[in-house]
């Protein structure tokens, strides 16, 4: 369900926070079934803390290291997402 959700966000600006506290912002280029994320036009949020990463442009982020994906609320129809997850959860609970 979240795979389809991310597919709707392709082309939008997102911020990805990794489990090692690094935050990267960029444009969502593509996503796959493991929720691995490819970002283009990447910018490291705290450049002074992580100067090692300033040479980044495009990056592939493994799904397992993502802690959060921050999205612009205007890009998301939260009601639709809530309904979809509710339906999926009740289907799981019933079965």
């Amino acid at each position, binding site marked *: 369900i979240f795979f389809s959700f991310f597919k709707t966000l392709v082309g939008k600006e997102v911020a990805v926070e990794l489990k090692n506290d690094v935050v990267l912002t960029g444009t969502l280029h593509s996503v796959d079934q493991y929720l691995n994320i490819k970002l283009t036009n990447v910018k490291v949020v705290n450049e002074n803390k992580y100067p090692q990463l300033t*040479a980044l442009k495009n990056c592939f982020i493994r799904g397992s290291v993502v802690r959060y994906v921050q999205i612009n609320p205007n890009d998301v129809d939260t009601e639709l997402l809530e309904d979809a997850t509710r339906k999926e959860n009740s289907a799981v609970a019933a079965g």
Partner: protein
Amino acid sequence: MASTLSEWVNQQITILTCDGRLITGTLAGYDQLQNLILKHSLEKVYSMEAPVERVPLGLFVVRGDNVAVISDCFDKGDDGDEGEKDGDVRAEPIKAIHQNVT
């Protein structure tokens, strides 16, 4: 959709491993699990006290489980020879990621 690494084959890339290390090298091969083969790899060790330490590693195989981020290198100078431009960079090491064991 196709979120693959094919566009970076035979290009200089930088890998961030789960233990917070930065390794640069040429992507020789990869698979669906993100296991990677890097040629002419170079580990960059940053610390607050000393300038960047470069450790040449040659041919390296990295297991996908340990890969956090893969990205291309935006080289400001395109002469293939890694200049000492970031020789004065000092930074705190990047944190390691504690992976859940399945």
